[in-house]
């Protein structure tokens, strides 16, 4: 309940404040959002499996975001930022899909 309220509060705050993304962070924010989404779906799946631990969730959340951003940053430094960010998005997308499939099996038994 609180988690759902937190998500709503974040969206509302974002809509109210309409912050500008700092130009330096602009390439990394989409990757970070996708990585966070991956962590959220992973957490939801773990919760449905009965093995959810909030400490693990917090750590995986931040490590996902930081590692994704770091990979893209490194790619930018190496001159392959575009390709690496595509690769990260693909990997995270696959994980999100498999997590969502597990969640679906739990909720709908299908």
């Amino acid at each position, binding site marked *: *309940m*609180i*988690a*759902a*309220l*937190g*998500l*709503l*509060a*974040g*969206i509302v*705050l*974002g*809509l109210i404040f*309409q*912050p*500008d*993304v700092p*130009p330096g962070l*602009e*390439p990394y*924010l*989409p990757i*970070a*959002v996708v990585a*966070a*989404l991956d*962590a*959220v779906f992973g*957490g939801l799946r773990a*919760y*449905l*499996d*009965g093995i*959810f631990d*909030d400490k693990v*969730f*917090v750590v995986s*959340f931040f490590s996902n975001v930081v590692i994704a951003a770091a990979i893209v940053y490194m790619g*930018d430094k190496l*001159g*392959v*930022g*575009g390709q690496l960010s595509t690769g990260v998005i693909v990997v995270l997308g696959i994980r999100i899909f498999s997590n969502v499939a597990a969640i679906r*099996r*739990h*909720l709908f*038994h299908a």
Partner: protein
Amino acid sequence: MPDQQGTTGRQRLRAAMSRPSRGQAVVGVLLAVVGFAAVTQVRSTEVDDTYAGYREQDLIDVINGLAGTTQRAQAEIARLEATRRDLQSSTDARQAALAQEKSRSDTLGILAGLVPVTGPGIRITIKEVDAPVDIDSMLDTIQELRAAGAESMQINGKVRIIAQSAFEQGPGGVGIVVDGTLLSAPYVIDVIGEPHTLTGGMTFLQGPKSQFEQDGQTVEITELSSLDIESVREPVQPQYAQPDPGQ
């Protein structure tokens, strides 16, 4: 999928909705961060249509894409211009051919007597005073006028003289039949050509004029700066002669 405690994931989710805990608060904060970041990113993607946030490589790709597009567009322009040149030159060639054919057809029409013509020339009036006109004298006259450069001729305003024209003595020696038309004196020959040359062709020593006068006719020659020949011929389709494409 029941687990050891006999509860399903669905039941646990329902329970979590009703019983908040400390862990949920942490998750809620993180989800708020995600929602905030996602909304921010969506907004900046919608608003930002400049190239400010692009990587160097992205900008290079954009430039390369634009260069490729430019090249394709220029190739297209060159191709279309070449097509336009081709079309123009073929139009010019066609117009030139058309003009050539037009002048050919005019020339042939005048030669064949198909069209009325106008131009400078002379009018010859032959009156029978003592004797009827001899057909040989008339033929000589026509030949001399042709030799003097006559371009178009008609007799008595009725018969156009062309390459196929034939002369016969009229029935009973009266009048002259030209191409089936009986003509009678006085004979008026309209000739288009250079007037002085034509007059010279008639009046030289022992020429047609003196021939007529010896035979007993009077000849009057008028030089005209403009003369209309209005009698025409119907075109005749040759029955035996065919153009030879081998030549």
